[in-house]
């Protein structure tokens, strides 16, 4: 079964649902390691730096976004790692997943309508198209 799972989260409700599915996958194999990846979007860098009083506050806010996800994994006694990366979410996830040779990517879908998708672009769609491993999109 899957040994290395990349769980891409953005701190939203959807990523919590994705986490629950990742837990199900991981429970099938007791050697399975989940890596939680949070991408700090380039497009939001200016906004986030502007609204934070200093680097420490900024980093704390980001770590906090991972907290609920970590809680779910902890309560299921799964081993996990966390990683915060900077870039455009879709390509950054794909690049990391392919480089580190994960055997499953789990990602939540934002559930955008078609207009929003045209404007914002679908992260999960990009990942499905270009990742070299199976991708589980959770609605």
């Amino acid at each position, binding site marked *: 079964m899957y040994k290395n799972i990349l769980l891409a989260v953005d701190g939203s409700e959807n990523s919590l649902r994705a986490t629950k599915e990742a837990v199900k996958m991981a429970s099938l194999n007791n050697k399975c390691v989940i890596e939680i990846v949070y991408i*700090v979007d*380039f497009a939001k*860098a*200016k*906004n*986030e*730096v*502007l*609204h*934070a*009083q*200093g*680097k420490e506050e*900024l980093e704390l806010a980001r770590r906090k976004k991972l907290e609920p996800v970590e809680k779910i994994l902890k309560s299921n006694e799964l081993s996990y790692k966390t990683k915060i*990366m*900077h870039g*455009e979410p879709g390509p950054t996830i794909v690049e990391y997943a392919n480089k580190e040779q994960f055997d499953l990517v789990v990602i939540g879908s934002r559930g955008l309508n078609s207009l929003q998708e*045209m*404007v914002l672009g679908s992260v999960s769609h990009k990942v499905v198209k270009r990742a070299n491993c199976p991708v589980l999109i959770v609605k």
Partner: protein
Amino acid sequence: MIKKLKTEWLSNVRGDILAGIVVALALIPEAIAFSIIAGVDPMVGLYASFTMAVIIAFAGGRPGMISAATGAMALLMVPLVKEHGLNYLLAATLLTGVIQIIFGVFKVAKVMKFIPRAVMIGFVNALAILIFMAQVPHFIGISNMTYVFVAITLVIVYVVPKFIKSIPAPLIAIVALTAVAIYSNFELRTVGDLGAITQSLPTFFIPDVPFTLETLSIIFPYSIALAIVGLLESLLTASIVDDMTGTESDKNKEARGQGIANIVTGFFGGMAGCAMIGQSVINVKSGGRGRLSTLIAGLFLMFLIIVLGDLVVQIPMPVLVGIMIMVSIGTFDWSSFSYLRKAPKSDAVVMVVTVAIVVATHDLSKGVIAGVILSAIFFVAKISKIKVTKHKVNRNLVFDVEGQLFFASVEGFVESFDFTVERSNIVIDFSNSHIWDDSAVGAIDKVVIKYRESGNVVTIKGLDATSKKLVDKLAVYNDSNAKLSTH
């Protein structure tokens, strides 16, 4: 040392060259538009963008950050150019550089943390509003075709990036619409109507101003404002690039580098500049990380001007206006509206006041200074709130003190005691308080002595170690003969 140079310059050659080229293309319209805002020939902004980028590539403290002629700086110099002309602007640019180097030597980066985020948010919003306002005379009431071109430009810059990512959309708008304008003979104003383009490298010359105290008194207020605004935007940009790349930078070195770059720029006929948020973000997004990207941006910009100068003058003004509207929309912090609702009222007021003062005075530095002072006042007001609660424990009357006791809070502190009490055991508990200065100790003294005069027994407790030290050193109430009048 050599290893550091190598990683800063050569660790990302391909990405840096490509990103530098993209940035150069994106810089041209902005450099021209900012020159027009400042009221000088487009060459002044183009030369500035060339020298700023090239010098900062070597002297800056934040690899991968782009510096050039900017809107924030251009807006400050408008009155100087209007009243005294270009040579005074160049002299002011030199002085700006000198001031920035001094700031850098005295570690200005430390001072940055005293600027609250409400002021910084106000700063970018005011900047966006001013850039937009500067465009209004170039497109309102000129001709119908002007409106059409502005609208088409906006459509291109917002829609095209969804499909074409490698070429900056503003450049696509410029090339396409300049071609349309040339072949269709529409009545449109062009860049050439507002100034000339010279297809040559900038040359060294000393600004033609009298070297007198009078000159200094004219340029100094502008230079100090330029120096402050330039460093503010540069250090904010550096933090953004730090965050995007997950690396650190030397902010004081950046401040000195900005100074050096402005001095060189002044000697080569360019207007004062600073780091640009938008362009630096484009650079990082396009894969630029090292100093090479900044250098390539500057060199390629100059190359384009020398090769394409004839075409640049044909760019229709409405296209530049459209691009500047995009820049101002991108500069504005749109989350400010939710910030106004969610942030503490005092922060919201500081933000609005910063914006209002800038828009009223057209001077970003005045808004920032006012914002900093206002938030300092709010801070003191907030922290000087002190709460004293009275309650009875057994036969003692206990006063719990909560808050910081210092010169600004002593009055409220003394007033919140009830001095009608007579002949009882009084305990003043400072567990939730801290004593900061001698006015605080004086206030405690006053309270203790006043109570003693009406026959009470007063005990002080709960002082933390540093507070106790201060009280023991300065207070007179331990002296049983102490009277209020002696203090």
